[in-house]
């Protein structure tokens, strides 16, 4: 194994990674219809990556990661997508790992990191609450210190994959009367098998349950499960996502959707209709230009730079383009858009309705597009408050 992946030329890294993934990612898991498969559905792939040492691309090598730079990480993600590999439950790898590496104690790192890699701990992220979504700082799930334990009460919602997780890292309010609401929030690591925890899956528009409600009733969490300091969890939580924010704006989904649209349109003779061609051309060019814009931000990362708040623009544009493409699919489907299931297009099935429904969510999650616009207005355009 290489001493440092970052010393290998990009193309060599790409082909090495690609070749191994292509040989080792099980065929039946490629191009899964589910965006967020459960842990046991993809466990084989998870463990194969772990055994190879390639499960945690950005963790430092001392913790069992690959220690990839942002540039190499982009290649990793690109090839993963290109080969149709399924998304694994990655809150442990993508969020808890970096959180603990930055803010955890040595004891926490030694305990939790190996258990993420082994798959023993499957994590989920407890941020949103029924009354704290875009306005996350208004969260009210409380933690009160009782001896050397916190007692947690309240509710989280939109907790992705909580029903296949056994741990949750959760934002709780530890001071009710803080002058600045962002103060008084604390990050806890919470064992979902503790007494008083109840998880209820929520079915989404596509008929799948990939997010849940999580209820906490007098749940006791030992003091040693505190990450960082009490009342300073907001800063801790915000510091986790760095260059990964670029992936929220990756053109992957619209790229996939427009290929499907093209197949469907071909089969339906839509390209004979100049009005459709005109609409298609606009979508195609939007995707092409999104690629140019993505490349501009990727270039910054490759040059060792850091992303600014302006990267939010990619998230807004890519998620809204994804929606417009899938809306066009339903228009091309004509009367057949009444069906719930897939549409035949020659020798392939096109999941137009599935993609249309799926495209509703990315504009909402990861900070709704309205919140992204607020961020751009303040941080980039510096408009008055």
């Amino acid at each position, binding site marked *: 194994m290489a001493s440092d992946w970052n010393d290998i030329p990009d193309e060599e890294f790409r082909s090495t990674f690609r070749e191994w993934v292509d040989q080792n990612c099980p065929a039946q898991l490629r191009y899964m219809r589910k965006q967020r498969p459960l842990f046991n559905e993809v466990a084989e792939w998870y463990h194969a990556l772990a055994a190879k040492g390639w499960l945690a691309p950005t963790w430092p090598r001392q913790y069992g990661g690959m220690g990839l730079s942002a540039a190499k990480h982009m290649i990793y993600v690109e090839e993963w997508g290109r080969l149709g590999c399924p998304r694994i439950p990655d809150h442990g790898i993508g969020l808890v790992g970096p959180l603990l590496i930055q803010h955890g104690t040595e004891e926490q790192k030694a305990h939790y990191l190996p258990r993420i890699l082994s798959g023993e701990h499957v994590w989920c992220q407890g941020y949103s609450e029924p009354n704290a979504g875009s306005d996350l700082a208004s969260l009210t799930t409380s933690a009160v210190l009782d001896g050397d334990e916190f007692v947690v009460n309240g509710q989280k919602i939109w907790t992705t994959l909580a029903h296949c997780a056994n741990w949750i890292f959760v934002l709780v309010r530890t001071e009710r009367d803080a002058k600045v609401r962002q103060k008084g929030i604390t990050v806890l690591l919470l064992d979902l098998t503790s007494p008083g925890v109840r998880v209820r899956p929520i079915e989404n528009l596509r008929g799948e349950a990939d997010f849940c409600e999580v209820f906490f009733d007098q749940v006791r969490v030992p003091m040693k499960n505190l990450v960082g300091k009490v009342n300073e969890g907001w800063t801790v939580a915000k510091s986790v996502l760095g260059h990964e924010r670029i992936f929220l704006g990756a053109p992957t989904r619209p790229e996939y959707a427009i290929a499907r649209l093209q197949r469907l349109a071909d089969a339906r003779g839509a390209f004979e209709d100049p009005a459709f061609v005109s609409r298609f051309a606009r979508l195609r060019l939007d995707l092409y230009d999104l690629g*140019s814009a993505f490349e501009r931000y990727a270039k910054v990362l490759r040059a060792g730079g850091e992303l600014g708040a302006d990267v939010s623009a990619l998230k*807004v544009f890519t998620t809204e383009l994804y929606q417009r493409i899938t809306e066009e699919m339903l228009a091309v489907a004509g009367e057949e858009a009444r069906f719930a299931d897939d549409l035949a297009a020659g020798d392939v099935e096109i999941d137009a309705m599935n993609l249309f429904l799926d495209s509703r969510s990315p504009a909402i999650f990861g900070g709704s597009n309205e919140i992204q*616009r607020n961020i751009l207005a303040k941080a980039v355009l510096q408009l008055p408050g």
Partner: protein
Amino acid sequence: MPELMLDDPDGTLVMLRDSVAGFAERFPGAKAMREKRGLGGATDPLIWSAMAEAGWIGLLLPEECGGAGLGLREQAVLSEALGRALVSEPIGSASVFAATLIGGATPGAERSRLAAGIVSGDVVAVPAWISGAKPLVVHAVSDNLALSGEARFVDAARVATDFLVVAQDAQGGMLLSVPADLDGMTMSERAGIDGGAIATVSFSDCKVPTDRVLSRANSSEDLLRQAILHTRLALAAELSGLASKALELTIAYTSDRVQFGKPIASFQAIQHRLVDMWIEADLAAAAVGNAVEALQSDDSEAAQLAVLAAKARAGDAAFSICRRAVHLHGAMGYTDECDVGLYLKRAINLNAMLGQPEQLRLEFVERESGVGRGRTYG
């Protein structure tokens, strides 16, 4: 504000931007535009020669015929900066288009004369290649050529010293430079939306010496395609600069304008509109940057696509950003004394030049995958 991001190892691009900024202080774009309009659309020779002095006219001419030996990267940055500064001289047609035709012409005395004159500012060579109702045709008459037909959409015709005409002979297209004071030539001008005059130039059996032929069939068509490609890139850059500056003005205005006790830019309805404008300006800058990079690769088909995308994107962005900019300036935006309307009018002109976005997009998808019935320009 969004801007072209290109590697600039020796600082040439920064220098170009600085020199445009300095120029704009001497010749403020909005003022020049209003004055030009007052003069019936004539390009101010003072401004044009100052631009030649700065080395901007014919920037794309190869070094062997007296050019600066600079390339499309520099042209794109220059055009973007001129767009920002609202410098409304016809740099696309009378510099980029002309220099590409002349640079690619058959070497000879006429090519050298034109190139040297363009660089010094003594020659204003204006492309006149889009046939009107009467097609541009040429045939040999004893020792001369006879040129007939009419050319439409000719910029800066009144100050032109030479027209670069592409006329058909029996073999195909012929590129020739035609003296602007030729017998049998007439000109009619119409006011352009941004204050410049746009002419139709008619030739009726005009005698042109054969030594004015710059290229003959086959190569003329290639040259024309090359000139369209380069000019579309330059126009895209100029439009991208216009878009970015119009947005900047609008942010400044709405941050300053107080209603209901607050700057109107503090209202979310306004903020989200401004953000959407910014996203479009950012995409336009990215598309132009992508086209510059593609033109420097060996893949000419990829370059064609990238330029089509860039001109379409920047044109759409500039036109729609300027429309919204007018709106966000309120009643002020509807007045002639507010500069933002001039940005809108300039954007309309450049967006319509060498292909509107819809047409360019159709050409893109037709080229890329053969779909649709996209028409090509010219």
